[in-house]
């Protein structure tokens, strides 16, 4: 009898262990860590002798000094070539009559995204004129054009090679990881030194930064083409190269286009950052505004960048999906405003008006195309009537393009032979910097608001940051390393455990241990806040369309607004130090968590609702008991991205008093010591890789446990 009970107890215990192993282990680790911390008592010190045998920064600086004279002639020549192309583009864009450039810029939006995206593009491009930032915007666009062209050319090529050669792929993958996580500030200074100040340095640094997505997605896209298709192609007598060029690459185009989309977004982020090495453009306006504490001016520049980012994102996205959507271009009445607005009469009229105008323009465009095509075909008939019929078919498929070319040609002719195109009227220019600055002033002195920010600041500092700082700094370095190595071993495997060991040893041996721990605590707290704020917001957006519609532009703005714009307001409202660093990081890293949560809940199959309610569970119950647990893998993806973005912010937050590894990146940059910057940067990369792999492996095991893969 007693054995049965014991057996039962055993199985119960066993079951508990099986189900909650992770939790038990975590609690145990935490208790032991606290004990170790308490016993250890003081700030941990990495052995001096280990630091002395590893003079990383000095060696790097020596090497840097030695190699520069050898490679500089080559790199400068490349820089000069790039500059030539850049100037070609920027001169054309700035010297051509603005109306013509305007039309050229917005036409692709109309072509790929229809009326809605077209109007957005008109708004964005118009905003540069209205805000008197036309030239700066053209400079940014030129930098973008050249760097994206280079990135895509090189990226697709490397991607294709990687897809054909497994060994090459294994070599290139860690390099891509490093390129994506290495803070760009590290190579900004070497980039301008090697390639030249301003545009050439900026463009080549941007290429380094923006290249990885194209390579990755090209490689992935080609590899994902089913083997059967390849076999079919070869069985029809295609050679390996033919099958690649004619079958696989075309089939991988959607993936490649997605890669280009990501590259465009990353390029824009860096082109703005490259203002630090004197890159011209909108970033320059933001930096100048920030330097003078002119929040309004920085915000104007920031807004112009946000609009550029959103339009470029939508256009490149639409290009990727062009095949599916182009057919349904204009079936129903155009909706400019969100749902629910159609009850308001004036809005309805506006929408009808736009709709009507668009139809007329389309009709006129089609007519022009028809006339031109007919003309060309008539000419072709003289040569060969059969070709003429075919030609007509081909040309009519490109009706939009032909109409556009016709329009631009007419505009250019008008511009050269008449002077009907004037400059953008001064009276139409509007700035909102003064009211923004006034509002900012009021906010800074507003006692209630300052009370709130002080409360947030103090509770964050005393409740989270400071305890975590002291805890992480107080744990012996070998203990912290060991814990991370164990986690890596348990969750992933031996490879990651070794990588973790190397990473922590590197951070210790370069005398960056304490800074590394501060980075770790800043990132932890920031991601925690993102989680607490972001997940509920994400859930809300998943259930409520209005919230979702309101949130979307806000998140877009948060993701694309250059961080410099909000650094000054953050410091004015929260004071300098680690807290504003955390707050700026939260602003930057929040969007992916919200997005992934929304997506995770929305993508769950419909049946779940039905099943859950048939078992009698309420909406809340379904959410908390079924949906949230099932969305955990998606949320984890968001957390993972949040961690990566928080680590990327580590390099920016020293500008407002953030401490941590990023501070050394700046110190190195300010003392022309590439070695100092590089070792701190590598420290960040190592932490990024360790945290990324651990959270990814954990997500994977969760997915597998749920049977989602």
């Amino acid at each position, binding site marked *: 009898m007693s054995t049965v009970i014991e057996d039962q107890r055993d199985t119960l215990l066993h079951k508990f262990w099986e189900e909650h192993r992770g939790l038990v282990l975590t609690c145990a680790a935490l208790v032991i860590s606290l004990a170790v911390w308490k016993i250890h008592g003081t700030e941990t010190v990495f052995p001096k002798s280990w630091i002395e045998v590893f003079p990383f920064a000095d060696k790097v600086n020596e090497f840097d000094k030695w190699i520069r004279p050898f490679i500089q002639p080559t790199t400068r020549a490349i820089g000069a070539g790039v500059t030539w192309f850049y100037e070609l583009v920027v001169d054309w864009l700035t010297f051509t009559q603005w109306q013509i450039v305007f039309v050229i810029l917005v036409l692709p939006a109309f072509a790929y995204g229809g009326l809605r995206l077209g109007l957005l593009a008109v708004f964005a491009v118009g905003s540069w004129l209205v805000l008197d930032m036309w030239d700066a915007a053209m400079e940014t666009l030129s930098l973008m054009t050249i760097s994206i062209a280079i990135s895509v050319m090189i990226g697709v090529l490397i991607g294709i090679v990687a897809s054909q050669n497994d060994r090459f792929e294994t070599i290139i993958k860690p390099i891509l990881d490093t390129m994506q996580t290495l803070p760009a500030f590290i190579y900004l200074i070497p980039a301008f030194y090697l390639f030249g*100040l301003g545009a050439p340095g900026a463009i080549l640094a941007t290429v380094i930064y923006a290249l990885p997505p194209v390579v990755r997605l090209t490689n992935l896209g080609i590899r994902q083409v089913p083997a059967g298709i390849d076999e079919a192609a070869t069985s029809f007598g295609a050679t390996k190269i033919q099958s690649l060029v004619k079958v696989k690459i075309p089939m991988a185009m959607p993936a490649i286009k997605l890669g280009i989309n990501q590259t465009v977004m990353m390029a824009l982020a860096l082109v703005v950052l490259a203002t630090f090495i004197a890159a011209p453009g909108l970033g320059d306006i933001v930096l100048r505004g920030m330097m003078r504490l002119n929040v309004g001016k920085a915000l104007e520049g920031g807004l112009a960048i946000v609009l550029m980012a959103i339009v470029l994102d939508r256009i490149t996205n639409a290009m990727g999906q062009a095949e599916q959507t182009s057919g349904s271009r204009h079936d129903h009445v155009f909706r400019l405003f969100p749902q629910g607005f159609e009850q308001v009469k004036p809005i309805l009229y506006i929408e009808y008006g736009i709709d009507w105008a668009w139809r007329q323009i389309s009709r006129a465009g089609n007519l022009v195309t028809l006339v031109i095509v007919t003309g060309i075909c008539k000419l072709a008939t003289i040569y060969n009537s059969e070709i003429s019929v075919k030609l007509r078919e081909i040309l009519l498929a490109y009706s939009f393009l032909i109409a556009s070319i016709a329009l631009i040609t007419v505009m250019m002719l008008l511009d050269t032979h008449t002077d009907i195109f004037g400059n953008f009227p001064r009276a139409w220019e509007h700035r909102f910097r003064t009211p923004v600055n006034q509002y900012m002033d009021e906010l800074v002195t507003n006692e209630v608001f300052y009370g709130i920010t002080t409360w947030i600041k103090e509770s964050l500092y005393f409740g989270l940051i400071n305890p975590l700082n002291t805890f992480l700094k107080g744990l012996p370095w070998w203990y912290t390393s060991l814990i991370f190595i164990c986690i890596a071993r348990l969750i992933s495997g031996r490879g990651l455990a070794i990588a973790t060991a190397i990473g922590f040893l590197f951070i210790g041996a370069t005398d960056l241990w304490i800074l590394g721990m501060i980075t770790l605590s800043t990132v932890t707290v920031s991601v925690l806040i993102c989680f607490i704020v972001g997940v509920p917001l994400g859930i809300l957006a998943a259930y409520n369309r209005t919230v979702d519609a309101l949130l979307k532009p806000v998140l877009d703005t948060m993701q694309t607004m250059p961080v410099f714009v909000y650094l000054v307001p953050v410091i004015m409202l929260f004071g300098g130090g680690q807290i504003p660093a955390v707050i700026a990081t939260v602003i930057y890293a929040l969007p992916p968590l919200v997005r992934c949560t929304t997506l995770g809940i929305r993508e769950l199959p419909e049946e779940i609702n039905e099943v859950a309610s048939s078992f009698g569970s309420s909406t809340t119950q379904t959410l908390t008991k079924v949906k949230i647990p099932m969305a955990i893998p998606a949320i984890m993806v968001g957390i993972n991205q949040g961690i990566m973005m928080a680590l990327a912010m580590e390099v920016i937050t020293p500008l407002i008093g*953030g401490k941590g590894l990023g*501070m050394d990146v700046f110190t190195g940059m300010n003392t022309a010591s590439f070695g100092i910057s590089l070792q701190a940067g590598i420290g960040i990369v190592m932490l990024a890789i360790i945290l990324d792999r651990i959270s990814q492996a954990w997500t994977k095991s969760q997915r597998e446990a749920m049977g989602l893969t």
Partner: protein
Amino acid sequence: MSSKLKAMLAFALLTMSIGTLSLAQADKRLVVPDLDWTGAIVTERTIQYVLENEMGYKIKKPTMPGGPGVWEAMRAGDVDYYSEVWPSYNPIKSEILEEYGGDGSLKIIADTGIIGASGYWTPRYVVEGDSSRGIKAVAPNLKTVQDLNQYKHLFKSLESGDRGNLIGCPTPAWLCEDQARLDALGVDFHVQGLGSETAHWAELTAKHKRGEPFVAYAWSPHWIFAALDLVEVKLPEYDEAKWPATNWAQDICFKMGNPKFIEDHPDVVKVLQNHRLTNAQQAVMIYEIDVNKRDVDEVVNEWMVANKSIWRSWLP
């Protein structure tokens, strides 16, 4: 003369003049950066005004933060000269400038006339109060740095704990050694570096607006003294032997340039040598730009038009 011939002649003349113009322009182009403090931009603009309006130069003005970036750019020949070097804050000058024992890859051209002074400052309302804002004088006896100890509770911050908080030099790269200075002088304060000048001035401005007490590092000439009413918290006189337990040395600011530029453009070098701007002259313009948020070019042009006699003497 027939009209056709006239037109041809006119055309030929036009092309020739354009050709010579563009030829002339090729060596009348300079690259001089706009650095990240207004003083430097003002100094630079007064020089550029002369070069552009009187001597036909065309100058490209990329924005970039001061510091080693500019020095490296100048060494590589991307930037021709740099018109306001503050010797105290440039740790790598000893590698580059012959006068400081460096390799001579850059050369000093002349002084700018600006004499920089650095130190610690506190708002006047902390010492004297401000009845119009209803602020009482909380530290009436605060005169020297040593006096800070008795008021340290006033200057506490989140991160300083029980010690006072001094907002020090924004970046370690400037070698201000604030913490070492305070420790050596027996001042029980924690030094907070805000990471960038922008953050530094933003924090000071915000605190001043709210009427909070603070002690902070600042240097003149600077717009901050026009925007905020500050009094100095005195440091011991500069003494090289006791550094960093003393005040900073006076910064006799100078201009420097790339040797090739100096060789190729004697006329510009002449202007740089003749050019002088006093602290007071610079401060007037800085005030208009930073406090009244006016456009840089507008302010400088106005000053130049009003002070023709001053800059006439700069011409070669």
